[in-house]
């Protein structure tokens, strides 16, 4: 399958993520959209890695698999980030009884 399809898919995912972040007010959905953008990038990394791998042949296995390993790192960090982010959202809800991001327009009070 040509790499174009992967690129279009990840661009579509990324745009959905951006629009979601910009338009939605629910913190959890905003959060999910952020994840969507992150994973669009991951998808792109893997796709390019695969393309690269085919182009170079199997002579340089280490070189070709770097991006795929990188993706695992990103997923680990993203998991950590998600846990922090969700914890924050939970705390916000406890304090304000709302998770509307537009409601959070000041740091004090």
């Amino acid at each position, binding site marked *: 399958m040509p790499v174009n399809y992967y690129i279009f898919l990840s661009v579509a995912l990324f745009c959905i993520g951006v629009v979601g*972040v*910009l338009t939605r*007010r629910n913190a959890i959905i905003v959060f999910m959209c952020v994840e969507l953008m992150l994973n669009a990038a991951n998808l792109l990394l893997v796709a390019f890695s695969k393309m690269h791998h085919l182009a170079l042949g199997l002579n340089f296995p280490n070189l070709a698999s770097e991006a795929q390993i990188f993706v695992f790192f990103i997923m680990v960090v993203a998991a950590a980030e998600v846990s922090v982010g969700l914890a924050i959202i939970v705390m916000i809800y406890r304090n304000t009884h709302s998770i509307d*991001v537009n409601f*959070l*327009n000041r740091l004090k009070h």
Partner: protein
Amino acid sequence: MNNVLQIVWLIPVLPLIGFLINGLGRKNLSKTFSGFIGSGVILVSFILSCWVFIQVKNGNTHVAHYYDFINTLSLKIGMDFQIDQLSSLFLLIITGVGFLIHVYSTSYMHDEEPKDFAKYFAYLNLFIFSMLLLVMGGNFIIMFIGWEGVGLCSYLLIGFWFKNNNYNDAAKKAFIMNRIGDLGFLLAVFWLIAKTNTTDFHQIFSLVADTQKNPLSTFDITGITLLLFVGATGKSAQIPLYTWLPDAMAGPTPVSALIHAATMVTAGIYMIARSNILFSMAPFTQSVIAVIGLATAILAATIALKQNDIKKVLAYSTVSQLGYMFLGLGVGAYTGAVFHVMTHAFFKALLFLGAGSVIHAMGGEQDMRNMGGLKKYMSITHITFLLGCLAIAGMPPFSGFFSKDEILGEAFKQNPLYWGIAVIGALMTAFYMFRLYAMTFLGKFRGTHEQEHHLHESPAAITFPLIVLAILAVVGGWVGIPEIFMHGGHRLEAFLEPVFAPSNDIVAKHHLEHSTEYMLMGISVGGALIALIYAWSKFSKYEKTTAEETGIGKILSNKWYVDELYDAVIVKPRQSVAAFLNNVVEKKGIDGFVNGIGKGVNYSSRQIRLLQSGQVGNYVLLMVIGILVLFIIQFFL
């Protein structure tokens, strides 16, 4: 190096020590002590000056070099004191008259607080120090240090009673007018350094006198001498810078006597006499000096005719006499000018001190219209004052006759017109001096009863200097008896001969017929005598009137409106320029610019602050827009 005159440094240093003692200890010293120190150091200086004078008279002249004041590769200016005939004569005048005035001051200033009393003597000593530096300096730079020093002391002493604002204004006026002249002096010195690479008197004058090696063109010499003369007009109160001197009468009377009559104002004459060779080589400058001197002499004399303040009359008379000295310098009569400096120092100091004695007795009254008849209360002041008046009026055999006659005679040789105008000035001198004398001492007393009750002869510390100066004013002229009366009678000319010899070689001397000389003398003395008797008879019966002056009298009593003219031509335009700069350029321009930046930053930050709404969505939107813009720039531009 082994010359005995090497120790002349003591002469100026003693007054400096006196200044330091009185100046630093003014809070703790008693009046007696500070007066004693102040006068004592001058007395020792005077004794030393006498010794120096005798040495010089015996033919021992010397330039004492102490250390290099400025030493660069190309220019070397030494701390040099030059002792020759001219400077030793001035040393005698300064320390001698200075000592008498210090003694006089101990009594005259006795009503001051001890602190102010010591301050006064500190200033006087500093003045004497500066003046000595001025006349002893062996190059133009050392002379300039003294030149500035006397200007400073003049400022300090005119404004001595600084609680009166008018006096402060007078002091500032004197200082600023002097500064204008000083600029001319400095420019002349720079010009000299540029052309000859030295400021040393000996070197410059021998370079210039040597026609082979002379580095100065006629243009240079004319320019330098004109600039030096500008300096002299400031210090010696000549047109157009003379207006500070009458105002300087705000100072205590002994100060007027010392600084504004006997010594400081003669600095310009000393400087020109010192540089006589330069001036003799610049005939154009000489004509300028003669004309300015003559104009000043006449102008000041006419103003003096109508003044009613006793010190103002004497001040204008001083300006007028200084004009005569410049006339003498302008026609090449350097000896005559220096001679007149000397006799003028005697009789004008005497007149000022006499006036001070009168003011003292009158309890501070200076208006002659309120005096009169003081003859019977103050006999010593009266007699000495009369002698001083006779001397300044040029009556033989008093000192003023000989010196003034010498200048008049030389002026006649140069141009009979100069002589004619100068004689008219001399008649006016006789007239206004005897107007002053008659209004003050003759007739009947016109002051209040309280003043009449207080009238008394002044104490010995005041009358002693008067008597000494009166004797000098009478006999002081006898060192310069003209050739026609006594062969070899002009001992001063013989004494000063070495200083003026180079000039005398350049300027051809004419000799007048003896009959002409007698005739000139007769006319000036006769005219002065008539003016004197007229003034005597007119003003001894003076009655106080309230009538306003009219016509020419009004113009004269308003001093030809020169102050008003300067005010309108120089002061007012400058003030309006300053007001414009202050109100428009400073307030609207510079302040507006600075404040505008502040306001602009303040306003724009108020507006930009609104972008920070706290809405996360906005931030993200802006971020996305920013990224898109970056992409567009990256790919399409």
